[in-house]
């Protein structure tokens, strides 16, 4: 499925911008893509303007433009994060049922989401901590998780407490089952496969260290 050369491994952990750039590199020209709210929106900055990548926003727009500035701001023209955006040539609008039909029907090539946890089998947890006082708020996360042809996750590999987010099985409430294809992190890029989790690149770590760190079966696919 990969249409680009794998990202080379590097000696240092990747910054958020570098992770976003790595995701952008793996998006084939002409793809229809939904970038989730938060960190995934950074990917837009790294997609080459001539790649013909077309962005979908689930609140009803295809070929969404960049963030609006100054006089461009129009309260009727926002993205899923409720940020004002612009209308490039070729943009189109549709209502919410049609927008999610587009997603759920498998028409988007790639969706990029953040995550709390990803399991070795591709299960995704990214909507709810499960804390007893947390108000559950799913938004479009579950639709996005199951809708696109391929789902890329962007996250740090470890929590602030140093616990891996790539896990044998998610302990947080699930967003979708076996839906993640790729995981882009500061320390490595992974591909979920039937044979285990493939390591596509490492950054500021080694395959051996990752194997020691993570409680999931890893395959060296560099």
């Amino acid at each position, binding site marked *: 499925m990969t249409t680009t050369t794998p990202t080379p491994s590097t000696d240092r952990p990747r910054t958020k911008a570098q992770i976003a750039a790595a995701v952008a590199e793996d998006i084939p020209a002409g793809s229809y893509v939904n970038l989730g709210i938060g960190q995934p929106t950074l990917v837009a900055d790294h997609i080459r303007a001539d790649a013909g990548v077309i962005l979908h*926003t*689930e*609140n*009803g*727009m295809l070929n969404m433009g960049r963030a609006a500035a100054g006089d461009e701001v*129009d*309260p*009727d*023209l*926002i*993205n899923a994060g*409720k940020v004002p955006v612009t*209308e490039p040539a070729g943009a189109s*609008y*549709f*209502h*919410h*049922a049609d*927008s*999610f*039909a587009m*997603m*759920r029907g498998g028409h988007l090539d790639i969706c990029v989401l953040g995550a709390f946890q990803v399991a070795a089998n591709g299960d995704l947890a990214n909507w*709810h901590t499960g804390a007893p*006082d*947390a*108000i*559950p*708020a*799913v*938004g*479009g*996360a*579950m*639709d996005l998780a*199951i*809708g696109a042809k391929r789902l890329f996750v962007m996250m740090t590999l470890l929590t602030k407490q140093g616990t891996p987010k790539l896990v044998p099985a998610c302990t947080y*409430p*699930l*967003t*979708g*089952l076996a839906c993640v294809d790729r995981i882009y992190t500061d320390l490595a890029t992974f591909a979920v496969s039937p044979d285990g989790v493939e390591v596509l690149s490492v950054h500021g770590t080694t395959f051996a260290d990752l194997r020691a760190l993570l409680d999931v079966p890893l395959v060296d696919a560099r």
Partner: protein
Amino acid sequence: MTTICTSTQEALSGIADGATVLVGGFGMAGMPVHLLDALIDAGPRDLTIVSNNAGNGDTGLAALLSKGRVRKVVCSFPRQSDSWVFDDLYHRGLVELEVVPQGTLAERIRAAGAGIGAFYCPTGAGTILAEGKETRELGGRTHVLEYPLAGDIALIGAHIADRMGNLVYRKTARNFGPVMATAATTTIVQVERIVATGELDPETIITPSIFVDRVVAVGDHQ
């Protein structure tokens, strides 16, 4: 027959206690703020509100909530940085919450308007939002049985109406309006202005007059 109302007060007359109210809008785009103000003034209690969010700041839905008029909220994303009114009521056990994935919310509303008795939807399968729901394997994938979500009332923000009640929307302010308009016994619409029948290009009419019961012009929102 569509009634052209001369005030939001007239547009909101006769709403019963206990009504289910579909409220359009995503963020402020398409949010029927004038109709919500009039709903507060009209005074019905014990309402069930179906909307994407559960109120922001202290106005609109949040104001309705703070006055204790809402028994239950059905939405996809109640928790936001400025949803303190809902957060407080929820934690005090003063409002019921049903969280529905955003695309399933839109599709359930569409089903109500389209005479579909129920549908099998892959979104949320295997997650806590599908707990207790009937499931079925279809095409090798688990689907959840979802039921229509109809309203007694729909409150919609659109761009322009003609005197017959046909509606056009503007950019991403379309969002939930067109599906909610089909799914309520009485659909009430605020528009920026009302034009003579025949002035709207028929190819741009998104909500035909058959779905519109009352319309009121509230002036330009910008």
